[in-house]
Each structure stands twice: as C-alpha cells, then as structure tokens.
C-alpha cells in the first residue's frame, strides 16, 4: 500500500504548472496551492485504503487485441487542414420567451416518414423556438440555421423520392459542443479552440444524420466538460429552463436545457462523471449514460478517455431509447467500442419490471436531501407496485468513487488537453520561443477549472506520486467494479437519486470546487465501473424543482434498465 503523500506545496504547484506548460501568476499560484491541497486532502480516503493485491483497472471492459487491417485510406486535404485559422462565431439571435412546443421525436419521425409533415416545417418550428427562447437560457453556442434547413430539405427530398430517411427522419437534434461536426465550429466552450472547424464528423453525428436527424445547433457546456453547472463556459452560463436563476447542471447543461425548454426533443451530451445524468435530473428530462464502449467515442473531444461516454437527452424514455438505438453499435474507429450488436430498446419498453430484483444503493442515497430521498421512496413504491422486488443494498467501495474519480479524470485530462498548444489550430498567443508560446497560449486559452484539473492531473501522474494517486485510484476502481458485481449477483438493477439536491442557484458553488464536485457523488461510480445508468424525472423537490431517479444496470444491461425507466416514467407524479 502506497503511503500518504505530504501536502502539496507552492513549489510543487509551480513545477506542475511548468510541466503542463501553463503560465500562472503569483495570485493563481497561491489559489491553486490552496485548492489542490483541499481536493487532495479529500482524496486522502482513497490514498489510505488498503489495496494490496488489487490490480489496477485501466479499461472498464475486458477488451483485448483490437486490430485493424493494414489498408490505406485517403489523406485529408492538406489545404483544408492548413486553413485552420480562427473565425468569428456564427451569430445567434435571442428573445426572452422559452418555447413549449413538445412533440416527441418518435411521433415527429413517423409523421415525416409517412409524408404527413415536412421536415422543413418541423425544423423551422424548432429554429423559431430557439430564436424566441434561447436568449434567456443560452443553451446554444451556435445555431446552425442554414445547415439545418438544407438537411431538412434533403430529408424531404428523400421522402418525396420514396426513400426512407431513417428512424429519426426530420427530428431536430442538438449536439453538445464537444462533438465534432465537419466544417462547423466545435468549441468545447473554450477560448483555446477558438474558430476551430473539424474536418470530420464524430461517428455519432454521422449516425444521427444517416438516421434522418437534423442538427440544429451546438450546445453550451462547462469548458471541456469539466464542471457540474455549465458556469465554466468561456461563453457565459446556461440557465435552467425550470428556473432561470438556477444552474441547469453540467457539464452538458446546454443540451439538457435545450430539451427541457422544448427546443428539440433529443440532444446528445457526454458523461464522464455524471455530465448527462446530473443536468438531465436538474432540468427534469431523461438522460442516459450507456455502457462504456456501447457508443463510439470517435469525434468526441476527449476529457477522460477511460470514463467518457456519449448519450442522449430526451423528454421521454421512448425518445431516449430511439436515439440511443441510432447512435449505439460497433465502430472500427474506436478501439474501446463493443463488438457485439447493440441491444434493442424501444421494443422492450413495455415489458415491465414484474419479478425483477432491484437494490437501493445505500452509499448513493444516505447523503442526499430529504426531499430527494422522499421522491426516491415514491419511485421505489412505483416499481414495487409494478411487481419488482426492492430492497436496500450496499456497494461499499462506491463511497470512494468521488475521490478516485477526481484523481483519474484530471490525470487523463492533463494528457488529453496537452495538444492545445497553439501549434496547429485554435488559439495561439505568440511568445519569444516555442516554450513561451505554449505557456502563454494555454494560460490565455483555458479557464480556471480546466487549469485546476490539468494541474491536479499532472501532479497525480508526476514522478513520485503516480502510485499514491493515479495508481491507487485505479486499484480503487477495481474495488468499485467488484462491489457492483457482487450487488448484481442478487439484483437485476440498482436505483438511487441522481443528484443529492435539486438545481442550485447560479454562482452558489462557483468559488468552491470541492462543493461543486460533491454534486457528482451519485453518478461517478457508474463511470468508474463502465456500467450504464440513466436518470428519469420523478416529481419535484420542496423548492418545486425537478428531482431525478437514477437507474443503474450491469455492463450491457441497457434493455432491462430502459424497462425500469419506462415504469418509473409511468409512475412519476
């Protein structure tokens, strides 16, 4: 067992900042030293855990030997790549009324496929809602009016020509702004990607397009998905459609808000520690974090590679199932993609939970607010009335999830974000030499939370600390997986609250990183275990704001998870 490391010093932080090529001011150095000290102190529970004989988990799923044939493909066009100069953001127009038009994706697609409605009409309606409503919310970084209308026209042409555009025909969708879209700015809500236009579509984006969906815009997020409130955006915060003085949660707050406001029936986000489920819960919509590897990560700008998964937001469980069916499935461009066919979900939504054994996870429930626990109790009653057998269950290592998460995710992020160095694309701040350019570009391009995590992660990987921090967190990850496996030996599903509280006011936790991190406590264990989990809105808290119930399932257990979600949706107040 590695010993307890000493408290991080100002010199350590200065060294780490140099390793990470981040210029820091004296003030920042002071602040970071204090904040990193507090975070690492919180993580001391993990450092103190006895993990002797426990192997580390680098990959949540036991995959090996993913190899491709040695066959050439075409090169990208050199001029297109070299032309990566910063460009102005596309304009967005605003007015203060949130939209309330709510037609499900399933209904929209079927009416477009039969020619009953034109995709153009559907998309124009969505764009009008965004135009009138998003000024107050700032769910979108970028609304793609021309591209969306052109895509809608193409869907209409296909219908007219007797070609089926696919299961999401004409459905307007919003994409978190960390999903690559060919020729369209992909910012991760960061200054450092200023003006960057990817030369390729993410696999999920291509699959949505192939299914007839129409991308109407890119949504706001915490910078590089680091945050739980969407306040860490270089473009300003997103507001919660249920109460604009509150945060929508994060990091996929823009996508959650876009669905909650009724702008679009479906949006995609990414979930590294709860970044889909937490905002979905706080905004009162459905949000799904699939099994690690079910959905390709190709084209998702990486935050923490071993934890990141893309998933849908939707107003209904059925729409979430429909969207997940479209984006799931093996992708040869992602080595961590599951090879087996993705499960059918829409077809099983009516199968109910009769006879299923459900566990309420004590470690993920005890620390939650009373009103949140009260909604969970009602949800459990709903499952029981539908024939499920529910009991309390303990997943002891889940208690260490947050600490392990805040060592693993920043460590991977510190490496993933190294490439934003001003050399090839995005922001560049010139310096006297390359090293100076790196330090200045990264200091100017990244916001405070991103800098904090890069430094934390660099420290956790640096010489002398690897075993105590990153290595130890990976061994704890193994313990978490083992404890979940044990719980699933006697249970088909687990449930818990999705978040400990309802949506908090904008600014409430902005200066206290640790308090902010604690809002992910119920969601991070699923990411560490690589297992699926989703949130279903279930009533309101004492403050009248939405509460979400989280359904957790074993790896590749999406079908049974969706069955329970449908039952919860039916029993929701």
């Amino acid at each position, binding site marked *: 067992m590695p010993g307890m490391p000493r408290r991080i010093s100002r010199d350590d932080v200065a060294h780490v900042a140099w*390793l990470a*090529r981040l210029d820091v001011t004296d003030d920042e150095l002071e602040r970071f030293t204090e904040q990193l000290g507090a975070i690492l102190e919180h993580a001391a529970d993990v450092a103190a855990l006895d993990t002797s004989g426990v192997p580390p988990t*680098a*990959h949540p799923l036991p995959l*090996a*030997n*993913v*190899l*491709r*044939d*040695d*066959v*050439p*493909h075409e*090169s*990208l066009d*050199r001029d297109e*790549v*070299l032309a990566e100069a910063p460009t102005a953001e596309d304009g967005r127009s605003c007015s203060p009324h949130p939209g309330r038009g709510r037609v499900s994706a399933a209904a929209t697609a079927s009416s477009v496929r039969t020619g009953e409605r034109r995709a153009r009409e559907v998309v124009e309606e969505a764009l009008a809602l965004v135009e009138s409503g998003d000024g107050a919310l700032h769910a979108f970084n970028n609304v793609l009016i021309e591209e969306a209308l052109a895509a809608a026209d193409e869907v209409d042409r296909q219908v007219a020509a007797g070609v089926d555009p696919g299961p999401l025909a004409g459905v307007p969708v919003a994409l978190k702004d*960390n999903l*690559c879209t060919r020729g369209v700015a*992909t910012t991760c809500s960061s200054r450092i*990607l200023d003006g*960057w236009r*990817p*030369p*390729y579509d*993410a696999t999920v984006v291509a699959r949505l397009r192939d299914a007839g969906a129409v991308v109407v815009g890119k949504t706001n997020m915490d910078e590089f998905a680091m945050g739980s409130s969407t306040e860490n955006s270089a473009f300003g915060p997103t507001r919660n459609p249920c109460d604009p003085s509150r945060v929508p949660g994060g990091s996929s707050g823009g996508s959650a808000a876009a669905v909650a406001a009724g702008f679009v029936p479906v949006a995609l986000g990414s979930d590294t520690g709860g970044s889909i489920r937490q905002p979905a819960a706080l905004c009162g919509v459905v949000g799904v974090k699939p099994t690690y590897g079910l959905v390709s*990560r*190709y*084209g*998702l*700008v*990486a935050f923490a*590679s*071993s934890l990141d998964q893309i998933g849908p937001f939707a107003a209904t469980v059925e729409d979430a199932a429909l969207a997940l069916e479209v984006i799931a499935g093996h992708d*040869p*461009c*992602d*080595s*961590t993609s599951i090879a087996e066919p993705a499960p059918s979900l829409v077809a099983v939504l009516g199968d109910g939970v009769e006879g299923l054994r459900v566990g309420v996870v004590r470690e993920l429930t005890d620390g939650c607010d009373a009103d949140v626990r009260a909604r969970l109790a009602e949800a459990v009653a709903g499952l029981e009335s539908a024939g499920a057998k529910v009991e309390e269950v303990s997943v002891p290592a889940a208690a260490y999830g947050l600490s392990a998460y805040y060592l693993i995710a920043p*460590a*991977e992020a*510190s*490496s993933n974000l*190294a*490439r934003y*160095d001003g*050399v*090839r*694309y995005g922001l560049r701040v010139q310096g006297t030499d*390359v*090293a100076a350019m*790196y330090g200045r570009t990264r200091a100017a391009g990244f916001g405070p939370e991103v800098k904090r995590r890069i430094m934390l992660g*660099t420290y956790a*990987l*640096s*010489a002398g600390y*690897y075993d105590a921090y*990153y290595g130890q967190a990976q061994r704890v990850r193994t313990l978490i997986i083992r404890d979940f496996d044990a719980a699933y030996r006697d249970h088909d599903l687990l449930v818990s609250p999705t978040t400990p509280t309802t949506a908090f006011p904008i600014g409430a936790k902005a200066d206290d990183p640790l308090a902010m991190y604690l809002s992910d406590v119920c969601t991070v264990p699923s990411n560490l275990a690589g297992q699926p989990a989703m949130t279903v809105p279930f009533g309101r808290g004492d403050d009248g704001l939405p509460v979400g119930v989280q359904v957790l399932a074993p790896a590749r257990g999406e079908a049974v998870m969706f069955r329970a979600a449908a039952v919860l949706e039916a029993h929701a107040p």
Partner: protein
Amino acid sequence: MSVVEWETVVGLEVHCELETATKLFCGCRNAFGDEPNTNICPVCLGLPGSLPVLNRQAVEFAMRIGAALHCDVRPSIFHRKNYFYPDMPKDYQISQYDEPINVEGWLELPDGSRVGIERAHMEEDTGKTTHVGTSGRIHGADYALVDYNRAGVPLVEIVSKPDIRSAEQARAYVSELRAILLAVGVSDARMEEGSLRVDANVSVRHAGSDQYGTRCEVKNMNSLRSLGRAVDYEVARQVALLEAGERVVQETRHWDEDDGRTHSLRSKEEAFDYRYFPEPDLVPVAPSPDWVASVRAALPALPAERRVALASRAGVAPADVATVVSLGLDELVTSAIDAGADPRLALARAGNEVAADIERAPSLEAAAFARVLAMEGEGRLTATQSKQVLGELLASGGDPEEIARAHGFEAMGDDALVSVVDEVIVAHPAEADRLRGGESKLTGFFVGKVMAATAGKADGKAVTRLLRERLG
C-alpha cells in the same frame, strides 16, 4: 605514474521504421519522401476527438523482430509518454513502457560475441520539424515547418543491454541488427534516410570494475561511420574528464558530424518527467500462442545461420562472408559457386561491385552473375573488364557475352599477347635484366607497360605468367 586502463561500455537504442502500408494507428499511407502533409488524417494529426486503432501488420512485424532477436514475445500494453514538442501532434507519444511486446533476447555478432537485448517495443514516430532561419540550427531558428507525414509511422525501438565494449563492436552490432531487419522483411533500415536511427548510451569505467560509470546518451549519428566516431569521441571526452578529476554529467549529447564532437543538448532544468500512464484509448495486445508460434515458424534463415552456411560452401571463415550476408547477397554468391565460379572471386565481386550498387542488386540475375565470373575465371575478361560488365548488368541488365562484345572486351589470346610482351621486353632491356636478376618488384612495371600497350585488354594474370616464362 600508474596507468589506468579504461573500459568502454555502450548500450544502443535503435529505432527502426516498419515498412507497413499504413501508419501505426491510422490508415494513412506510410511512405517516405511524399509531398509534406499529404498523408494525414484526424488521428495522426492528433485532432480533438480522434482515436487510435492499432495496425495488425505492425504488431506482426514487431513480433518478427522479437522472434529474430530470440526475445520472449509477450502480452503487452501501450502507455502515453507525455512531453511537449511541436512535431508531436498530441503532445504525448503512444509507446510501450513497462509491459513491452518483446523482452530479454540476444544477438550474435559475426565474431561470435553476443549482445543482450533488453526489449524491443512498438511506438509511433513523430512529425519532422524543419527549422528555418539564419543559423540553420535548432537554437536561433526564426520559425519551424512541420511535416506530419511521418507522424504515426510505426517504429520498433530495440534496446540493447550495456554489453558493447568498443566503437567497432557498436558498429558491428548495428550492422548485424540491420541485416536481421532486412532478412525478416520489416524495414529498409537505412540510417541515411532515418528509417534506422541509433542513439548510444556511452560510459567508461576502470577495466575489471563491475560498476557502471555515469552515462551520456549520444544522438544524431546518421551512418555507421559517424556512430563509430561519436562513440570514440565520447569515450575520449569522458576519460579526459575523469583523468582530470572531474565528473561526467548524465545528459543527452548531440553528435556534430562537421566538427566531430558531441555537444550538450539540454540544460538541467529541462529534465523530463514523462508522466507515463496506460493509454486509455487502446486495449492490451495479447498475441495468442498460435500467432507467436506461426511468426517464429515463418522466420527466414537469419544472418548468423546464413554466414555459417555460406562460409562452409565457400571454404572461408564466417567473418569473411559477413558483408555479403548482411547485404542479402548470399543467395547470389551461392548460386554462382554452384555454377562453378571461384568462391573467393564470387565473394569479392559481390562484396565490392554488387554492394556498390546495392539498390539494383535485386535485378541482377544469378545466372548472369555466374556467367561474368566464369568469363573472368577463364581469362576471357580482365578484372577491370569484368567489373565494367558487372556494372552495366546492374545498371541496365542484358547478356554478359553481348555486353563484353559490344565493348570489344575480348581478353587477348596468348598468341597476340606474347608479341606485345616481347616488344615491351625489347624496349626496356635494363629493367628486363634486373628482373632476370631476381628484382621481382619489376614484374609490376612490365605488367603496367603491357596493359598500357593493349589498352587494358590484357589479362594481368596471363601477362605475369608470360613474363615469368621469358624472364623467370
């Protein structure tokens, strides 16, 4: 004054570019010399959102190298090696760290000595930076241009144990390794073009000591010759330091071919902390025992084995056939010998004339080669003419007899030669007397005169024989 004997200790790190069709983690073409930035994609440019997928052929090639170096071929994983450099698109390199695919092997040199192999692991190459500026050196360049065609090209890094004891042995090791890489068909292994790159860890110690001295890593040798010079220089530098009572500082040093010295590259505060951690975007590579066995079974005969075979066929020592074998010309020589050629002549012509135009050697037909040797052996071609015919065969192919005829290369018959020899003897009576008197070095004088008189068409051996008959 006591004389301390110093022992040279060298370990070599050799990077070898694999000749796959595509790069290590993407389908971009792996081609040398294409227009800059024309073999690029989101993956090898390290664009946000891109992900690596491992090339099966590269794994197979790495396994072949491991098998040829008698390594244990094992399940392995990739790590990220984190450091900032403009020619590295992700600012980390995907490499293998503490669980490489090949460990613990050895390589036998032509002199019979063995050098241990610590590991041979897979990693991706970086892009290529050209510094543009007034000085033409890294420091002080005005700006840099980066070509990412090379970024992501598969490499195997072969790390020897510190078993090498001289510059000469270091050269022999690289030469042997190169021969092995060529033999197993994984790389063209050219030092000059950078597809084989050698870094040397050099230290010195008192002879007989079992402790290692402080080592320096010497980079930037782009030929076997510069490797030898760099090791010799570095050893002398370290010995001079130690004998002056100073110490060697562990550092990376750059070999400068022009001034023949090594120079310190990095200042101390730039010491690296690579923050290795397992690459989360890739999964473990665990070649099945069947796959490993099939790679071992399919290995061609390796140079050491081929040297023994050719040496016994030619009736010479294995070290005498090292060049020919390392260039892959042993089959050519063997078939010439089989066709009746003099073994030493075949070895000499292959090791010199064919080796000089090694690019074209694959087009040289064994039968044609054997024919030239036969013509030379029968005295129908002089050595000079034989070399010329060989050169032409290599350059443009054809029939040796016709080439010889077209040049008028018919070695003169004895009848014609006798009269020329007699004329030369008559023209130089004093020298003829001295040769008669036993001053044998004058043979060369007469051979030269006959050659001049016949414009090189005379066979030197025949002239010597005729001189001996007349003046012996």
